[in-house]
């Protein structure tokens, strides 16, 4: 893990995944998915290496959110295979699904905090139920993670007392508490007021610096450019173009990507 100037990195609490450095944490092969007649993913091949930060961009309806939701089994796909941190995704087996989901952290556009539980309990629920983590250990870890996202003092607050940006940071801490091998971020700043976007992105950025593997669907091109190791442009259910941020944003090859990028400036 690279040393970081970020002071918050001193209490880094990420747990190393099973996957070796330089090996793929997520391995997607020939993945196809349809909603009824409509095919939304038309054969996706994608490897995400350990420690890599991948940004997925594209128009709405290009299939990028669906792809993300396939990776932790929220959507069922018809063809292809998907392996996360050595665990294949098997829809038929509830046990295998739960194994896999323990390795995948998901952050949603609409936060989806549990409104009836305090911030601390939101973070502690899954480790207690799924990982059977002991109470003291669980609480210590939750406090540590909340501190990590800058919300140590909100442990006993209820979600509806927090701003959108704070709620999203709690959601990040909640996902981290399961020690995921990869974090999926589905347009996590789209529901936020503009002035709250920064605080969430800073947390994500610091995770990236600490070596967390990230796959994020985003509309924040500036952020993608700054943080991502690789950018993937999706168009009509396919990976249309991919490359380094410099290549994608600086020298787009396909007319579709050029059109997409220029539409952002309008």
């Amino acid at each position: 893990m690279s040393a970081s100037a970020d002071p918050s990195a001193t209490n880094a609490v990420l747990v190393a995944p099973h996957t070796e450095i330089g090996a793929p944490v997520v391995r997607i092969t020939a993945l196809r998915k349809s909603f009824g007649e409509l095919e939304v993913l038309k054969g996706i091949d994608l490897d995400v290496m350990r420690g890599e930060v991948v940004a997925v961009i594209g128009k709405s309806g290009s299939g990028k959110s669906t792809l993300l939701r396939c990776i932790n089994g929220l959507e069922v796909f018809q063809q292809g295979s998907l392996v996360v941190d050595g665990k294949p995704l098997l829809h038929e087996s509830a046990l295998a699904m739960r194994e896999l989901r323990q390795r995948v952290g998901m952050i949603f556009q609409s936060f989806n905090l549990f409104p009836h539980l305090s911030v601390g309990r939101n973070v502690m629920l899954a480790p207690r139920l799924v990982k059977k983590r002991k109470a003291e250990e669980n609480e210590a870890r939750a406090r540590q993670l909340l501190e990590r996202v800058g919300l140590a003092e909100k442990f006993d607050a209820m979600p509806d007392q927090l701003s959108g940006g704070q709620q999203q940071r709690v959601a990040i801490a909640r996902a981290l508490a399961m020690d995921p091998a990869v974090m999926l971020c589905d347009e996590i700043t789209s529901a936020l007021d503009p002035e709250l976007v920064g605080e969430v992105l800073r947390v994500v950025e610091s995770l990236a610096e600490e070596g967390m593997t990230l796959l994020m669907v985003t509309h924040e091109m500036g952020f993608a450019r700054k943080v991502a190791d690789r950018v993937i442009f999706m168009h009509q259910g396919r990976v249309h173009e991919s490359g380094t941020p410099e290549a994608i944003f600086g020298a787009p090859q396909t007319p579709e990507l050029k059109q997409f990028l220029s539409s952002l400036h309008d």
Partner: protein
Amino acid sequence: MVDFTLWDILRNLLLAARWTIVLSLVAFVGGGAVGLVLLVVRLGRNRIAESLIAGYVQVFQGTPLLMQLFLLYFGIALFGIDTSPWVAACLALTLYTSAYLTEIWRGCVDAVPRGQWEASASLALSFGQQLSHVVLPQALKIAVPPTVGFLVQVVKGTALASVIGFVELTKAGGMIANVTYEPLLVYGCVALIYFTICFPISLYAGVLERKLHVGQR
């Protein structure tokens, strides 16, 4: 001929009203338990079970409770079991209540945003854990006012048990009206007793409903 004072009438009606309350509670608790089981089965996303339960609800909500009582009363007898009005009334009202409650509760579960299921599934919670730790606690909060409100329907529904000969408040009213020749007074008292039982429950359901809306703001 014996003279009946108003107190005689009232006292006898109140004694019979105990059975109205017992029958209501049995139906409400039994119906709640059956309704909860049906709800969980329904949420298990099994197509066949789902449409069976939808049919069950449709039948109990689309036919008269009186007919349901008759059917159980005569239906149990068909099996050669010597049935009492008490057993038939308890069973019929329990099934009737379960159909309504499971439907009310499903509406409450549906009102919990999909994102809550997705977030808890993403955290590797099992279906049972998603239900019991995340979805049901939220659904329960919105389910309380309509559930309390439905208790009024159950209490009123027990009056139909009089038709198959179960001696509760309404049946007792008929018997007393026959011997006193004071049907206006007796049925007036019967109505008043039902009102005394039901109106506070209605009021309470209303208060809960308003509280919930204030809390959501």
